[in-house]
């Protein structure tokens, strides 16, 4: 039984949230308590599956899982047109494991938080059904080794995400944002599908590893490359295609926003996968490295400068999200730019990619926590306007401390995790180009300035009569937020543990294109 479950972990990773989501409307009939129990149970089981799978991958190497034909010789007919095994493969290497840990952390925090935060709302059965669909989509995106399957999960994520953004209609504003998100996501997914069609037409394969081994880098492949990376860069919110992020992140319920950050990162993962594992050696590294670097620097700088004047606390955080995504693009871009230069890669390229990947999980926890605290404040005060909020430190001390942890971490102040990853990024990028490192540091200082202002506006000052009835948020919300805060502090104090156990294998996996291909083609 145990070995059976362990060998089927990759399937369970997607099947459990799907099952949990689709049974939600049925189980919800038994009343809110039973439904909440089911929500928590589903979240716990999904989290356990994710963690077990990630540990398995990090300890024993990449895991492949086959849906359909178990062996390459199992084809349907002698007919040459059908002389291929019909199957979909999941391939989870150390990079996938990192993304799974990232998703699992957020799932755990957000599910516990939302049970209390959404308790007073209506239509919760469908809300949670969509939420689990979103979770399943994100897990699928980071676990799959099949390009078309990636497209399907991308669409599932976009659909569930857009529906959740629009779920609380809010006089139409939320629907407006949801529609914007849905339109852009569908357009992006269509571009990805076109690229898949172009690649399949030439190489007769959909599996990323099989495609990578057959790729010739014809002019059509270059078209496909553009059709893959531009939409994925848009979905992860890089400037100049960031315009949807503030609207969507602001209007979505806070627990959803915290998870939309994760779904954006799944697109970021897809972007890295396409660049490193699918195209890899074919690319002219410097060009595409600089493509990522320019996207990254623009995102980091424009994001933070747009954030400073914002009055809406969630809109401000959304612009910071754009800015932080810039760091990951910048760092991984530096790594990609020196991919062909072995000495530079060993000297600082590897460290740059490590910093970028470490920042993915660090940023997800900080930003998730920030959005959750914003949700807590909105729940108690009913406003997100910084000019009207204030003096909440008296009534909501725990939320204040959690906000402070997240804000200091995202600004890169020791001893929190943001410092660890940002230091790695500064050091390695400095070797590549001192100017870029200086820009990154300036962005960090502006981030700190912005959050000092927000902190002062939200929590400081004498008590105000209009907030006399404000109390601390319910305990489950605090527990959910504490999950993320705990990671922030632990990863900040012991970064070495995470870097050696989790990040270094992920960097190796990202750089080892031949290994990625061999895992699928050699194994089964």
């Amino acid at each position, binding site marked *: 039984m145990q070995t059976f479950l362990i060998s089927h972990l990759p399937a369970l990773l997607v099947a459990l949230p799907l099952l949990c989501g689709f049974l939600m409307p049925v189980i919800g009939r038994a009343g809110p308590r039973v439904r909440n129990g089911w929500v928590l149970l589903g979240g716990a089981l999904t989290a356990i599956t994710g963690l077990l799978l990630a540990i398995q991958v990090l300890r024993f190497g990449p895991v492949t899982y086959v849906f359909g034909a178990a062996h390459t010789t199992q084809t349907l007919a002698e007919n040459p047109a059908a002389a291929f095994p019909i199957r979909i493969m999941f391939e989870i290497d150390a990079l996938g494991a990192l993304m799974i840990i990232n998703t699992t952390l957020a799932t755990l925090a957000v599910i516990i938080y939302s049970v209390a935060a959404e308790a007073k709302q209506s239509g919760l059965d469908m809300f949670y059904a969509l939420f689990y669909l979103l979770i399943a989509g994100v897990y699928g995106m980071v676990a799959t080794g099949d390009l078309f399957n990636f497209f399907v999960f991308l669409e599932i994520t976009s*659909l569930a995400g857009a529906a959740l953004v*629009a779920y609380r209609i809010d006089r*139409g504003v939320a629907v*407006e944002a949801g*529609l914007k998100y849905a339109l852009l996501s569908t357009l992006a997914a269509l571009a990805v*599908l076109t690229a898949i069609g172009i690649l*399949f037409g030439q190489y007769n394969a959909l599996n990323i590893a099989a495609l990578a081994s057959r790729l010739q880098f014809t002019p059509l492949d270059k078209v496909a490359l553009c059709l893959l990376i531009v939409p994925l860069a848009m979905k992860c919110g890089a400037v100049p295609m960031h315009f949807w992020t503030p*609207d969507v992140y602001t209007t979505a319920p806070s627990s959803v926003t915290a998870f939309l950050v994760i779904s954006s990162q799944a697109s970021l993962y897809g972007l890295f996968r396409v660049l490193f594992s699918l195209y890899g050696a074919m690319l002219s590294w410097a060009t595409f490295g600089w493509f990522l670097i320019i996207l990254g620097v623009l995102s980091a700088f424009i994001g933070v400068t747009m954030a400073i004047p914002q009055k809406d606390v969630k809109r401000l955080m959304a612009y910071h999200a754009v800015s932080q995504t810039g760091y990951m693009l910048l760092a991984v871009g530096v790594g990609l730019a020196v991919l062909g230069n072995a000495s530079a890669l060993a000297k600082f390229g590897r460290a740059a990619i490590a910093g970028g990947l470490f920042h993915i999980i660090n940023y997800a926890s900080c930003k998730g926590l920030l959005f959750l605290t914003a949700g807590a404040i909105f729940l108690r005060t009913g406003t997100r306007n910084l000019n009207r909020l204030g003096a909440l430190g008296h009534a909501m001390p725990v939320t204040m401390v959690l906000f402070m942890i997240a804000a200091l971490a995202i600004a890169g102040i020791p001893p929190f995790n943001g410092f660890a990853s940002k230091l790695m990024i500064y050091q390695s990028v400095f070797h590549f180009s001192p100017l870029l490192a200086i820009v990154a540091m300036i962005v960090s200082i502006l981030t700190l300035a912005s959050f000092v202002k927000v902190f002062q506006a939200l929590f400081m000052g004498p008590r105000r009569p209009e907030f006399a009835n404000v109390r601390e948020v319910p305990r489950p919300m605090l527990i959910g937020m504490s999950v993320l805060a705990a990671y922030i502090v632990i990863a900040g104090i012991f970064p070495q543990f995470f870097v050696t156990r989790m990040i270094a294998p992920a960097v190796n996996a990202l750089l080892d294109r031949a290994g990625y291909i061999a895992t699928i083609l050699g194994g089964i």
Partner: protein
Amino acid sequence: MTRLFLALPFVTVVILIILGLGAMLFKKNLIKILLGLSLMESAVNLLLVVIGYRQDSVAPIFTNVPSGEMAMPTVQALTLTSIVIGVATSAMMLSFAMVLYKRYGTVNVLEIRKLKH
């Protein structure tokens, strides 16, 4: 002549994509924008099917298969999946358009701008 004939579907795909993109960029009516998106979806589906087509091929149904080359079944499966996804997204976005019309009394995208305030 045959080559030209075989290239015709690809030309159609490009024309449909341009039409759809044009509608999305230049139309102000939300329903027309969504129609443009649907048009592009159909174009991509057509592209997938055309990629799988082989001249004088038989349908990829495996029982009692006649001799001769088969059309590629994978892309047809992809197209089916893509159509299903397309239905879901279209239905969702059209229902969004309905909600917006109920709340704002218009489907003109220039007037649906509460987000900016």
